[in-house]
């Protein structure tokens, strides 16, 4: 691993340290665009990261102390949810969506499938206060944290915070989630000329560039735009996607293009988790007669036809986007306090 991470200026702006991906803290991979996250507002420290991780894995954030962030975002599925999502009733806005994998969030201009959330730190208010997720109130969480000796000490160390307030809680969680960088897949090492694709992966890569890269654009494998890939509206769960945020009819059933990094592990697929196997996703794209309205221009411009062998080639390329270092990084695991 030759990539050195970024320089981080610690809280007081005095201590700076070099960071390796294995340490867990955020780094900017070579040749990647500038991250959008506001690091000046929340300078990362190892203590802050560890505090964020402790919170991420702690059910203290939920009303009855049973659900943590990690209940829906598991490391070995690239922080996505493994269960097929079920509908939690009509008022449940988030409950009807599939939990996406969490990675490279520092580059995300918007969060959630509909792009309604503009700020990573603020995102955490959604699961904490959502009745079908953690069902807590911010008052309730802060009260519990302010009674907890471990958290009192840690928040004091990291933010000089007493009492712990909303912004401290959100910044701590942000220090952990923004640090979930995945950039060490086989694909990345091929790009760095440290290894080579085999013949099948190479064929898959050409197909990918031809048919998929317009929307799932490297290096993040998404262009962050709102598109429809022809799966059609869900018939049971009404979810108009982007239109809920913009109020525009032309945005109905558009969803943010998801990243394909670690896609082998982040099943089930699509905003509603309706497809459970990657093979089936490829079968969907391979056969344009399956496509339903709405369909974005990128799909319909060029006719896609992928025979069975081509689908296998694409699949083997998609698997080169799996990043074992990320999926098994000790630094992202359940912490021992």
């Amino acid at each position, binding site marked *: 691993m030759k990539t050195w991470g970024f320089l981080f200026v610690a809280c007081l702006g005095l201590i700076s340290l070099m960071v390796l991906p294995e340490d867990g803290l955020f780094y900017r991979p070579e040749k990647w665009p500038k991250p959008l996250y506001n690091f000046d*507002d929340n300078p990362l420290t190892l203590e802050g990261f560890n505090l964020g991780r402790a919170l991420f894995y702690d059910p203290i954030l939920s009303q009855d102390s049973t659900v943590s962030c990690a209940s829906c975002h598991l490391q070995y599925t690239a922080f996505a949810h493994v269960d097929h999502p079920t509908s939690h009733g009509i008022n449940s806005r*988030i409950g009807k969506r599939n939990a996406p994998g969490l990675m490279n969030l520092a580059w995300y201009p918007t969060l959630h499938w509909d792009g309604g959330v*503009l*700020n990573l730190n*603020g995102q955490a*208010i959604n699961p904490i206060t959502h009745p079908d997720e953690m069902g807590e109130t911010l008052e309730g969480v802060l009260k519990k944290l302010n009674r907890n000796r471990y958290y009192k000490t840690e928040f004091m160390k990291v933010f000089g915070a007493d009492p712990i*307030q909303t*912004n401290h809680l959100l910044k701590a969680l942000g220090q952990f989630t923004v640090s979930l960088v995945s950039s060490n897949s086989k694909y990345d090492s091929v790009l760095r000329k440290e290894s080579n694709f085999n013949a099948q992966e190479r064929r898959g890569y050409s197909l990918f560039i031809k048919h998929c890269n317009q929307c799932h654009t490297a290096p993040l494998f998404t262009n962050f735009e709102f598109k429809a890939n022809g799966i059609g509206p869900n018939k049971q769960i009404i979810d108009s996607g982007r239109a809920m*945020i913009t109020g525009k009819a032309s945005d109905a059933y558009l969803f943010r293009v998801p990243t394909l990094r670690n896609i082998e592990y982040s099943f089930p697929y699509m905003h509603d988790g309706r497809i459970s196997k990657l093979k089936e996703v490829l079968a969907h794209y391979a056969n344009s007669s399956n496509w339903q309205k709405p369909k974005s221009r990128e799909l319909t411009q060029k006719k896609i036809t992928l025979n069975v062998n081509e689908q296998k080639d694409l699949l083997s390329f998609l698997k080169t986007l799996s990043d074992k270092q990320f999926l098994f990084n000790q630094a992202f695991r359940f912490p021992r306090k």
Partner: protein
Amino acid sequence: MLRFFLFFFLFPSLAFSQMTLFPQVGLERFELHQLYSRPDGDSIRIDQFKWYMSTVLGEIYLVDASDPTTYALPFLSKEIQLGLDSTANTAGRFDGAYDPLLGMYWAWNTGYIHLKLVGCLVQKGRQLPFEYHIGGYKAPFETFVPITIPEGTKNITLQLERLFTALPITTRPNIMLPGVAAQQIFHAFSTAFE
């Protein structure tokens, strides 16, 4: 760090408190949980009434009728705005007046509620609850209005009758999204400052 911030946050309000809001219904002083009659014969009761004000300098301030000390505006600037601009809405800071604890933050569609109005319409003995979360900072559904206040003004009287009459309680008792209906309510509120 926090103390430092709080100091700056509170200091102007102590030192330069120049203008005070006086919400009224007709000639009566407005109070939460009181019944006020409307011209159409119905009565209205308000249980929650909060709104953001801001200045052209980017300061933001929450007025909350349940805490009348917030009627004293900590603004030096004469150029007051009702609501928040897009910078404030997307600032991504969650301290002070930005704290989502204040119940004015839309988490799933990033932005702030600029005006929260919750209460009940009493119509021929029937109670019709209503809840308005009014906000929006994206064109064309902004709820954000500059207010001109004559120089030297110390007391700003808010005439709330027009707002209470304009609420579409029987047809739309709940509005939780930016849009035309939200803008109409916000506009009615802004006329209270005239």
